[in-house]
């Protein structure tokens, strides 16, 4: 990194995890839960111990807690917010929430420059593409989006209330001990990450608990849990159908491109055998003339951090520097309208 490059802060504040760091880095320097204690403490140490309530910062969106998270972020990154531009991944449900955050950033946190762009677009860029069909399996919800030339096509975007966290539940039974709810969920999540697989295993899977005991699970049990992402029920069609719906609802011109550039991101994409299963399931259901091709990120870390990495690179491009929305532009333009104009979506 040469000294002419201006460093900015990049943040991906998700419903469960927050990742923040600097442009040019391929890894977020600060990773934490998007939650805090009643006394505004962040991090799993504080959240996992004690009997106080654990507060969600998103879901629903809590502006006061969000503001605290932003300030804590700059503190943890070791920089003054008024000296650093911020690229924030846009995963806001409503314009109103985004508007509120921009106001907090310019007026309270006092950043000099701002930009926002949809998570799906950043995941697309981080795979070296500008057009793709993105499946983002988050913690509490899954979002499927078509991105075309860097624009996320919101009209065909589909969201479902199923995500990685729902797969923790069957593993809770193995968590014994005096822990608060948050800590129990963390432990169940660890066990899930150690055991869950789509692959046909010959022997039973084993996981060693902190106390030395072993948990064993049969292939059949694990398949049943893992298949929740593909099975349909009352309020969920299965991730394969979310993607197919977008393909079928897209104009012919981009159908081919979307089919040949399917990208799965989010931690659950790392479950062993998941990508193979997604490829075979989709290929079997795809319309004729549409060959499904899954684009694989170079490493598992990319699936957790694709949004951050995309932001880190995008905001480091010298050609990008003219796109920042400056504080004075924001103040002089009647505030939110400049964001809508300069940040496509």
């Amino acid at each position, binding site marked *: 990194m040469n000294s002419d490059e201006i460093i900015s802060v990049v943040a991906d504040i998700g419903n469960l995890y927050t990742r923040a760091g600097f442009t040019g880095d*391929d890894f977020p320097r600060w990773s934490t839960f998007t939650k805090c204690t009643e006394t505004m403490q962040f991090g799993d140490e504080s959240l996992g111990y004690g009997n106080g309530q654990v507060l969600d910062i998103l879901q629903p969106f809590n502006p006061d807690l969000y503001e605290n998270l932003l300030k804590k972020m700059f503190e943890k990154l070791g920089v003054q917010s008024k000296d650093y531009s911020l690229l924030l991944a846009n995963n806001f449900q409503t314009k109103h929430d985004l508007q509120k955050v921009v106001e907090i950033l310019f007026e309270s946190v006092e950043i000099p420059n701002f930009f926002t*762009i949809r998570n799906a*677009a950043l995941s*697309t*860029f*981080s795979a*070296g*593409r*500008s*057009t793709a069909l993105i499946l983002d399996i988050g913690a509490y919800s899954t979002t499927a989006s078509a991105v075309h*030339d*860097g*624009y996320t096509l919101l009209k065909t975007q589909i969201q479902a209330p199923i995500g990685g966290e729902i797969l923790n539940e069957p593993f809770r039974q193995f968590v014994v001990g005096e822990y608060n709810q948050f800590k129990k969920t963390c432990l169940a999540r660890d066990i899930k990450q150690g055991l869950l697989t789509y692959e046909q295993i010959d022997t039973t899977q084993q996981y060693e608990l902190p106390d030395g005991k072993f948990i064993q699970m049969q292939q059949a049990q694990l398949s049943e849990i893992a298949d929740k992402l593909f099975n349909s029920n009352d309020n969920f069609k299965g991730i394969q159908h979310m993607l197919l719906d977008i393909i079928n609802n897209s104009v012919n011109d981009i159908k081919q*491109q979307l089919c040949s*550039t399917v990208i799965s991101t989010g931690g659950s994409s790392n479950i062993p055998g998941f990508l193979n299963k997604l490829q075979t399931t989709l290929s079997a259901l795809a319309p004729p003339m549409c060959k499904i091709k899954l684009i694989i990120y*170079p490493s598992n870390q990319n699936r957790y951090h694709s949004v951050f*990495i*995309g932001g880190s*690179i*995008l905001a*480091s*491009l*010298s*050609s*990008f*520097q*003219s*796109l920042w929305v400056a504080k004075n532009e924001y103040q002089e333009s009647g505030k939110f309208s400049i964001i809508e104009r300069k940040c*496509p979506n």
Partner: protein
Amino acid sequence: MNVGTNVSDDCVTEFNNLKLGKQYRYVIYKLDKDNNEIVVDHKGARDSTYAEFVSHLQNESRYAVYDYHAQTDDVPPRQVEKLVFIFWSPDTNQPVKQKMAYAAGKEALKKKLNGLSKEIQANEPSEVEETEIKKIVLN
């Protein structure tokens, strides 16, 4: 989404020389050293072969415009001529930042080139074989 990548005037001039002046069969573009401006990399003579064109698409991303002529299978066969925009983005070896700079810069270039009929995004050699481009042109 246009991230503001510069496009040198040369890029448009040579494109017009291809499109209107019929001086070239193809023009290949690349990003300059700082990944900030798109410039002309190669120009192929009017009688170049497709194989010669593909030989320039190696380990680094490139943009290209190819003036492709094809014949339909009708009787009698129809001549079809289309300007195809090709985005070459190989997955091997390139640093992610460079790959992304090309992905992000594509729109800036396309905006300046009027008259493109078709677009191909190719990430490996099989996707840029002549059969592929012929299929796109004849569809």
